[in-house]
């Protein structure tokens, strides 16, 4: 019995922890069989902690569609200088990710931003270093924000 429980615990918690890496389970919300690749203009940003939602208007031959793209905490962005003044309506972004499992698009289509970038190369969303944590100079690549 003990051995069985150990095996169950090891297998279960190993898989489980891969799923629990954020405030909620993405696999429960988004459809891995519904990938998206959209380019559109930001129409609104909901700066809500822990989930900012970026509303993007996409125009194609079938007309205009507004997507709500889920992002993480605005806290980190603001600490890195990304504010309401820099991520403004009209900004073009590319979103590559997955649509929600519910696809009624009422009132908006919903997607997660597996990869969100600006096409002008500004790399605002690329935060590989200098993520807002206090610095002690150990990482020479930390950007100087002075």
């Amino acid at each position, binding site marked *: 019995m003990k051995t069985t*429980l150990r095996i169950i*615990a090891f297998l279960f918690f190993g898989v489980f*922890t891969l799923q629990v890496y954020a405030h909620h389970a*993405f696999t429960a919300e988004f459809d891995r*069989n519904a990938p998206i690749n959209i380019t559109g203009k930001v129409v609104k940003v909901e700066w809500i902690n822990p989930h900012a939602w970026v509303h993007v208007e996409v125009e194609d031959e079938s007309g205009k569609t507004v997507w709500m793209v889920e992002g993480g905490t605005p806290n980190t962005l603001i600490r890195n200088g990304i504010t309401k003044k820099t991520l403004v309506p009209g900004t073009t972004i590319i979103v590559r*990710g997955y649509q929600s499992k519910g696809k009624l698009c009422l009132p908006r289509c919903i997607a997660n931003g597996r990869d969100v970038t600006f096409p002008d190369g500004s790399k605002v969303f690329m935060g590989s270093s200098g993520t807002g*944590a206090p610095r002690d100079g*150990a990482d020479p690549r930390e950007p100087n924000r002075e």
Partner: protein
Amino acid sequence: MNSLKTIFLFSLVVTTSSLEAEQIMKTWFGDPDLQGTWTNASLTTLERPDNFKSLVVTKEEANVAASYAAEFTEVIDNPYEEGESPKAGENVGGYNTAWMDPGTQLFKINGEYRSSILIYPDNGRLPRKWTSWGMEAPSLYRMFTQANHPEQRSLGERCLVGFGSSGGPPMLNVLYNNHYQIVQSPGYVLILVEMVHDARIIRLEGTSLPDHIRPWLGDSIGHWEGNTLVVKTKNHHLQQRFRAAIRHQILMTENAEVTERFTRISEDEILYEFSVDDDLAYKDLWSGEMPLRKAEGKIYEYACHEGNYSMANILAGAREEERRNQ
């Protein structure tokens, strides 16, 4: 057990000597001043990764760890080539790392880089009783597979408490929102935890609540030992038994008792030490330490319910799956 006591005594001597008595900041009512906004964001995790063989690591090893972390984030920020689209069937993923705040380097204590928060057991691993952990699996499986109504989902998804042990005790770092605000008044210390807006009120020299009252984040009673705030917490909420994040997974049963020590060691740092005693889930005590560093600015208001479109999406997703399976 003796080694554990030795470690605590040693660290107490070290920390008190690092800030001269006349420099210790006081509140207007005379208590040592711990107030401010603090963060424990760091690459150092609760348990020691296999690639580290000791608690203290060299600056070179710490730099390598920082470089690996930076390279890893580059990779996950750039999952596709330019113009390439995501493929059906892949993991839906999470956020760009710019949304996260996991820290960029290992933390230092007394000028030494640390490979784990755990300082006891010596191997940097939790002394788990796997049989107790295995017993938790069925309820956790249900929590992350059922979606008939919100109450079946996890506490984090329901905006009740943060995932992992962000709010503690013990307070452990996660991938983002690692901020805490400490506010003191005569007889009380309040710790506001950014994730998810939890406020732990520590009653100084108070008495514990009856055992059947189990608040979120437990029942905390504190007292001062010199310039160190010592907090003992028990009566942990039964729904907070299992606390999981990608950086740590801990089990805290109804028997768990946590002792924390907060010592202001400089203008910019609090040394945070803790010890967990839970004989149902662990074969031994476990203890750790990490710095809480002064954070710039204020904590961004947490408005979990207001922005929680996710709960509706999760429930809608479950209905869609039911429809497909009919």
